[in-house]
């Protein structure tokens, strides 16, 4: 019951955060001088095409762009009736993309799921790599195993993500015949899910997952190693060794479980940077996630589209952080008791 109450509380704070974030994002997308339509109108007037001007003026009215900024925000979010009654983010109307001349929802469409998929794969990769390597590095501290993993980890942290992507793509294609670019073979695009499509997506996911996950995995590996080293020096470990326990069993049974907590808590710090990375990597590798969409939208000042993508990215991060917080309480009883006292 305790946990349910905490989960609800955590969900509430997430909603509040999201509200503040939406204001922030709205301010940011309105920072560039003018908006897409007023720029277009100026351009059309300069070239003397009055027919287009009328349409642009119509759209400006349609999307309430001539209203003061705070009203625009309220309408965008759906807190206030716009020209068409309540129809904003909350009501599921994400606005109109001027650049692509179609609703935002149609443009982002599938890419939302692919974004979630790519990031989920990266998170799984981080855990799958960091857990064994971190434990190994701690158990074999100050040997070549430790130094090699530390070196690889540092390189992973220091290499710009996008370069790693380019290099891995090139060599992955050359040596392992991995596909270049995209998230699935072109013939599967727009086709309903089937086994071959899933396989194609999985093969295409290998390089992006690796690239997005590397920096996070090395950071997490170092932290797990440090935590493990702290635990390994404690008397209970000595007792276990003295009892004659097999080292691997001993590690898994005692120190790992203690060192594991920060591991789950860390996902909150990790997610923002990983989602950042996934946006960048998607642009470089031409993945059909929302990364490239965001970049075009920002460059062309397509404010509703970029606003929605930014909101989605923020939402993804906030949900991930919330899940990790709730998981942590499930995992560690001490945190739950603290919550009860407070």
């Amino acid at each position, binding site marked *: 019951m305790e946990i349910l109450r905490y989960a609800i509380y955590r969900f509430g704070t997430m909603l509040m*955060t999201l509200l503040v974030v939406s204001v922030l994002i709205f301010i940011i997308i309105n920072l560039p001088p003018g908006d897409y339509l007023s720029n277009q109108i100026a351009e059309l007037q300069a070239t003397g095409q009055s027919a287009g001007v009328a349409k642009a003026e119509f759209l400006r009215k349609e999307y309430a762009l001539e209203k003061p900024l705070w009203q625009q925000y309220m309408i965008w979010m759906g807190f206030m009736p716009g020209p068409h009654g309540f129809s904003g983010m909350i009501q599921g109307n994400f606005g109109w993309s001027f650049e692509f001349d179609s609703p935002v929802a149609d443009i982002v469409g599938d890419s939302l799921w692919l974004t979630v998929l790519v990031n989920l794969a990266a998170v799984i990769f981080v855990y799958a790599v960091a857990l064994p390597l971190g434990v190994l590095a701690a158990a074999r501290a100050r040997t070549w195993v430790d130094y090699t993993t530390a070196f690889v980890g540092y390189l992973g942290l220091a290499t710009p993500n996008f370069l790693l992507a*380019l290099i891995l793509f090139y060599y992955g294609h050359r040596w392992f015949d991995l596909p270049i670019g995209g998230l699935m073979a072109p013939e599967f695009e727009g086709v309903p899910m089937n086994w071959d499509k899933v396989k194609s997506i999985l093969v295409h996911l290998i390089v992006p997952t690796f690239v997005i996950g590397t920096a996070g995995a090395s950071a997490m590996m170092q932290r797990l190693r440090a935590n493990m080293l702290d635990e390994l020096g404690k008397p209970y470990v000595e007792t276990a060794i003295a009892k004659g326990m097999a080292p691997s069993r001993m590690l898994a049974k005692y120190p790992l479980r203690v060192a594991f907590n920060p591991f789950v808590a860390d996902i909150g710090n990790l997610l923002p940077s990983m989602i950042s990375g996934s946006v960048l990597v998607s642009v470089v590798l031409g993945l059909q996630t929302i990364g490239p969409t965001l970049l075009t939208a920002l460059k062309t000042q397509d404010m509703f589209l*970029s606003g929605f993508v930014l909101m989605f990215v923020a939402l993804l991060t906030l949900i991930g952080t919330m899940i990790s917080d709730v998981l942590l309480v499930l995992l560690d009883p001490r945190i739950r008791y603290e919550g009860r006292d407070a």
Partner: protein
Amino acid sequence: MTHLPDGRYVDDEPFDPQASLLELERKDLDAPNWLLVWRKFKTHRLGLISGIFLLIAYGLIPFAGFIAPYGPNQRFSEHLYSPPQSVKLFHEGEFVGPFVYPMTSEANLETFQWEFKPDTSRPLRLKFFCEGSTYNLAGFIESNRHLFCASEEATIFILGSDRLGRDIFSRVSYGAQLSLTVGLIGITVSFVLGIFFGSVAGYFGGRVDWMVNRVIEILRSLPELPLWLALSAAVPSNWSPVAVFFIISIILGILDWPGLARSVRAKFLSLREEEYVRAAEMMGATSGRVIRKHLLPNFTSHLIASATLSIPAMILGETALSFLGLGLRAPAVSWGVMLNDAQNLTSVEIYPWLAIPMLPIVIVVLAFNFLGDGLRDSLDPYQQ
């Protein structure tokens, strides 16, 4: 020192029974803090080397024009995509000193690539401290001396040339000016904001603390890059490169301060209960004075270490932004702008030297990481 037959060493100085046993250690106990820190830092080999390397790198920034043989935007239309040229010492078994062979380019009409052939019969010696294109030393002294250049008939592209026939080595050294300083300006912004908000929150507590904490939480929970992208997309495209550079570094700093503010706040929360703070307040010191004179000096060294660790993120951030075309733009030269050329796979496959600017990036970022680790480990000299 006398070496006794039984293998012991004995000091020749007369024995003084009055001397305090603590005498030797006294020196250590009285040593100022920075000396102890320095002593400990010296043992951190990797950190020390990184620190020296960074010191040299930043020291050389004003002399970029002197080190580079050519100007950053000087074009050689005969040498597009020239591969790196090697500097040789021996010509046909004979020592001639550092020289290069002149290169001639020829278009291959089947592959549509430029092919370069060295003329191995004519070794042309490099000249040192020679005259070349003019540049401004440290920004204001006009000069045309270069560390080295090729003779008039040859070119010297140590790291090859790019798609417009510009020397990559020269561009890397000019690019360092922007790429390395972007982190410094960003960290200054982040420092000012972080210390201000962190100390105000920690010192005053209560409602202010709550507000600042929420802001920190929100900013930390957001993915940085999309926000960087959105903010830099808002920079008008008609601004001068210098203005864009400053704005970009400020943007990098604006989103970085929450981490710093959090650690400052935590320190303040524990320190403000100390007696000396109470004493200062009793004597009528203003809050500003207590914060600046009594509290902040306690952990400036700690702050410096954490700053060192967050500079790399900014350098990588600038690179990523420029790489995507939303950061610094073309006439400006930075490592990220240069990597913009290496954006597609074909160019990386055919002209791998276009990706060379990644090497200085990786090295500098690693150096900052090692230096930061070293500083952090050695900052508390009393701890073993």
